[in-house]
């Protein structure tokens, strides 16, 4: 057993996992306010990356300006989605809202294809591809940057949910009717959660766009992001971070053992196994809340 190699796999797995968390945080934000897994989060992430590129390449702004501007645009888009589409569905069965988010994902993919085509574009963040060595361990710089962004967002949202607005959002997640009864604007709260998730999508879109290029395939991040969110408990941001690290490590280390045995492709199997086993064994995930039953 080569311990250096194993720890390299584990560390890089954990960093990749934090990038999944970066994506999953957006899912958790929307789930917390609407109790719906947002199937369009992949689409939003892709659009976030495209908007950054549009501002940087097509308009010609520097990246340090294009990224925050894209965040503002996406913040508005998130509010717009609630106003135009979700508000009409208030009080309808959750499955209807779920189908709406699926439709939205398809719509966003089609729109980007129509505007920017299907050729992969590069983000060119300017992060060096020279390997970073930690002792004998090789670490990817862009993954390190992305993991840092994920952790920064995690801290920011933990603090946000202690503010008055954050507490109101948590109240909405707990009980719509009771929220209405004390004058909380449920509509505005749901809109805000979509807006924040869209901002997170910009961050995830930039990092993942840098890693795998910007094209419609970015929206497929949903599958791993959703697995992480479910494992973490869907409504827990801490859960999303820890589950991301777990999935990243298990996937990276596991694939190294299994790939020679099955001839490759075991990553997808490991992700599928984690998702299915979570739902079967621990449906509310590692940190998800379950409904309180007093005896």
């Amino acid at each position, binding site marked *: 057993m080569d311990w250096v190699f194993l720890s390299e796999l584990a560390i890089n797995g954990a960093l990749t996992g934090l990038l999944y968390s970066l994506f999953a945080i957006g899912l958790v934000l929307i789930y917390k306010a609407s109790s719906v897994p947002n199937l369009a989060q992949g689409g939003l992430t892709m659009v976030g990356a495209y908007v950054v590129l549009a501002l940087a390449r097509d308009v010609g702004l520097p990246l340090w300006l294009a990224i925050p501007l894209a965040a503002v645009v996406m913040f508005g888009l998130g509010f717009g989605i609630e106003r135009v589409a979700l508000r009409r569905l208030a009080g309808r069965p959750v499955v209807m809202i779920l189908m709406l988010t699926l439709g939205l994902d398809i719509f966003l993919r089609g729109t980007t294809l129509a505007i920017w085509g299907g050729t992969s574009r590069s983000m060119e963040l300017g992060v060096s591809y020279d390997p970073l060595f930690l002792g004998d361990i090789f670490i990817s710089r862009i993954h390190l940057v992305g993991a840092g962004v994920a952790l920064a967002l995690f801290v920011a949202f933990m603090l946000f949910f202690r503010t008055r607005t954050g507490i109101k959002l948590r109240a909405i997640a707990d009980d719509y009717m009771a929220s209405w*009864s*004390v004058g909380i*604007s449920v509509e505005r709260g749901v809109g805000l959660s979509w807006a924040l998730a869209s901002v997170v999508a910009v961050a995830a879109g930039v990092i993942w766009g840098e890693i795998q290029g910007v094209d419609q395939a970015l929206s497929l991040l949903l599958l791993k992001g959703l697995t992480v969110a479910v494992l973490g408990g869907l409504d827990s941001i801490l859960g999303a971070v820890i589950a991301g690290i777990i999935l990243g490590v298990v996937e990276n280390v596991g694939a190294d053992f299994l790939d020679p045995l099955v001839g490759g492709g075991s990553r997808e199997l490991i992700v599928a196994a984690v998702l299915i086993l979570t739902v079967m064994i621990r449906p509310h995930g590692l940190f998800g809340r379950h*409904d309180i039953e007093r005896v």
Partner: protein
Amino acid sequence: MQEKVEAQNILSMNSVEVLYDNVILAIKGVSVQVPKGEMIALLGSNGAGKSTTLKAISGLLKAERGRISRGEITFQGADITEALAQKRVEMGICHVIEGRRVFEHLTPDENLTAAAPRGMSRSTLNAEKDKIYAYFPRLAERKNSQAGYLSGGEQQMLAIGRALVTQPKLLMLDEPSLGLAPFLVEEIFGILQKINKDEGLSVLLVEQNALAALEIVSQGYLIENGRVVMHGTAEALKSNSDIQEFYLGGGETDFHNVKHYSRRKRWLS
């Protein structure tokens, strides 16, 4: 004279009809007046239309796909029949909905924070909280535990406290005594009476527990099958034979001292 009486009512509900899903007639022409600073009870059995009446006043009907199809509701002289629920809370109507419904995953302190109106300063919010904790010392003791694990009585206190943060002028409570031990009902009703007296808060109380309710209110309405079938002072209702028989649980009636009430005539009112 009539107009003067109107002006003293903080809430006036005139011949209101409510439809659910456009077909089910839940209340059929209910008229209820709440005089300013008084406590009024709506009595009646399950499914009589008491909760629907409160939801029509607070605007929460919309969340259950109900609507007011006839009649009007005025609050402090303003027509609120079509106003949004949120607007009505801002105007000073707060509805403590049935079944307590505290925010279970928040602490009691956060429950109070969540109800703070937009733009309320931190110092005002803290002053409101202190006042509420003074009314409900049990809440102060547990303000940082999880609300879902509070006892039923504490949750009811929290639901009332949460409503008070919105600084209501009219507080409406739907079955606050439900599932609580008699001593707790007494404690909570006592606190309601105190708030009513101290702050001049008008209260509209929906109760199945007519006995407890009639002890603290000045007037009561009896609702059956979506209609008001009786209205009078608490004293008059307590001594009414029908009320005694059906709602207070008293079997013996002294027909010499109590005017007999013809039940068939109720439908004409």
